[in-house]
């Protein structure tokens, strides 16, 4: 008997949801036409230029430098993701525990970079990281010598982490906001010292946010262009730069397209691997 009313409501619900389906049309058009169509063209051209066949893919996998760059792209993305997780986690946590005024400030700090163009932010990093830049001046002043940062992989990772950090913080925050901190208190009363209460209760409950943020950051990092192009050097070229080179400088749409497709497929494979992990967490994290 108590189950009857909700069941009735659930049967009614779809009628209300089905109505405004057409409201999704603008977004659908943008997604399909603006992303889907060019994507299709790129895939087609990768198989058809200069002639029909898989010669572009044979070239890609047959040229060692391409594979090195592909591997490096995944490596750099992984480092960036790791750096983002480590720096975003405490930040997002603090956002959930501070007062409203402080929270506003913290949210603002996350959002401000969104309002400043990526190019400007990357230029800022050039100023900070270059050999005679702020960081090296400080290091020299402290008597620690200088480090090469600009045009190195480390510089690229630092710059990309800063640019992509908001994409990690926001999903993390939205998950952490939903975690009942009283659960940690409950764990403490059951005998868990603070570190165990965190590791066994808080951390597992925050993982969906970590996964969501990590996937977004990782995928964005794989295709990131401006920051690696400006901060990187010849030894830290990423796939996006290589692609740009093929398409815009060499006008070789076939090879550029093939690179894009390889990146896309690799991303999908990764997503497919991560999916079961996410789904499992979802089931366990279902609301009370």
């Amino acid at each position: 008997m108590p189950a009857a009313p909700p069941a009735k409501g659930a049967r009614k619900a779809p009628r209300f949801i089905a109505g405004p389906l057409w409201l999704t049309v603008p977004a659908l058009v943008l997604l399909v036409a603006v992303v889907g169509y060019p994507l299709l063209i790129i895939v087609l051209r990768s198989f058809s230029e200069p002639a029909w066949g898989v010669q572009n893919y044979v070239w890609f996998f047959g040229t060692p430098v391409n594979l090195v760059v592909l591997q490096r792209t995944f490596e750099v993305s992984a480092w960036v993701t790791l750096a983002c997780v480590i720096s975003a986690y405490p930040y997002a946590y603090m956002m959930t525990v501070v007062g409203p005024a402080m929270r506003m400030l913290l949210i603002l700090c996350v959002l401000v970079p969104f309002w400043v163009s990526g190019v400007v932010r990357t230029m800022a990093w050039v100023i900070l990281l270059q050999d005679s830049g702020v960081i090296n001046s400080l290091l020299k002043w402290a008597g620690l010598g200088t480090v090469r940062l600009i045009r190195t992989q480390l510089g690229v990772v630092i710059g990309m982490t800063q640019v992509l950090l908001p994409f990690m913080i926001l999903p993390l925050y939205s998950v952490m906001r939903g975690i009942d901190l009283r659960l940690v208190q409950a764990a403490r009363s059951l005998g868990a010292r603070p570190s165990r209460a965190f590791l066994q209760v808080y951390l597992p409950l925050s993982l969906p946010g970590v996964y969501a943020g990590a996937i977004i950051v990782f995928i964005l990092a794989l295709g990131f262009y401006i920051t690696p192009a400006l901060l990187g050097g010849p030894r830290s070229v990423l796939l996006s730069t290589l692609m740009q080179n093929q398409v815009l400088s060499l006008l070789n749409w076939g090879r550029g397209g093939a690179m894009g497709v390889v990146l896309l497929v690799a991303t999908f494979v990764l997503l497919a691997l991560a999916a079961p992990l996410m789904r499992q967490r979802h089931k366990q994290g279902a609301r009370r």
Partner: protein
Amino acid sequence: MKSTLATAAAKGAAIDIVSAIKRYGAFTALDDVSLHIEPGEFMTLLGPSGSGKTTTLNVVAGFTEITSGELTVGGTSMVGVPAHKRNIGVVFQHYALFPHMNVGRNVAYPLTLRGVGRAERERRVARALDMVKMADFAHRYPSELSGGQQQRVALARAIVFDPPILLMDEPLGALDKKLREWLQLEIKRIHRELGTTFVYVTHDQEEALVLSDRIAVFNHGRIEQIGTGRQLYDEPATLFVGKFIGDSTVLRGEARVSGEETAITIAGETVTTRRRIADGARPVMLLRPEKLSLARPGAGAGGRNRLSGEIAEAIYLGSGSKYEVRLRDGSTAIVRSPLEAESFAIGDAVSLCFAERDAKLLADDDQADLILT
């Protein structure tokens, strides 16, 4: 009163709170609270919202430190001891089950923390789940349980490590009446079986009466009175306690002392008492509904205190009747009369009668210390 003590006194621990004060900035949440709880006792903290019940519980659990005062459990000072070292079970109003662990792992958690071996752990989890009648649900996740089931699991988790003290903060607050009443009996049974000291928070006086050996009535961060349900009902120490526990009629009057007797004028009529009160004081008189009776004006026994009024509401209850009587000064008296008593209709003029010993004279809330005896 404490029949459980004889069987399992060894398992429960005594709690002593001495002159505890808790301040949040300028606000005083606990104002000189002292409370002694016997080993194995079922003590209920009763009081309105914001009166400091949860704060007291949190102090015992170790979630909050008192600003000053002393707290001992089983004779050992707990001041400064972190929550996870206190070995005290806590059941929260919001269940606080870990959503990422199934019922079995939730209940096993405190045992895992204590390094209890697998076989022993499984045995104790099974026993605890048995005790709350949730043995068949070990593989469910909290999100797949009803509120009452979740609370029973939370209870199992709080007792599985045999803590000498169990704290419960409005554990049944979110459940419907039927379920609440059934779980009250379950909690009482578990208390009897375990012999653990229970400290239970509620703002429902009926629940407090059903469950407790003794009740501490909180108001504004202070304890107004500690006693058994009967003591609180029959001998309320303050007007607040009198009004909070059970139904009551509160009459306000002015005292005039003449020799042995004190006359109290209520709405132009006078009742007498032998209790000594300061001349000119304005005490309140508290009367329980079953101690009041009604009579036609002029009829009935003399020598008793009477006040005139008019029936404002008459409700037939099956086992008797309940009347609301409007007195001359506009105050309302509640009367419960037995089935065999004469019945009255709305609008009838009546005399409200009561024996002197049934009238509790108390200081009005805003003027303490006026009553001498």
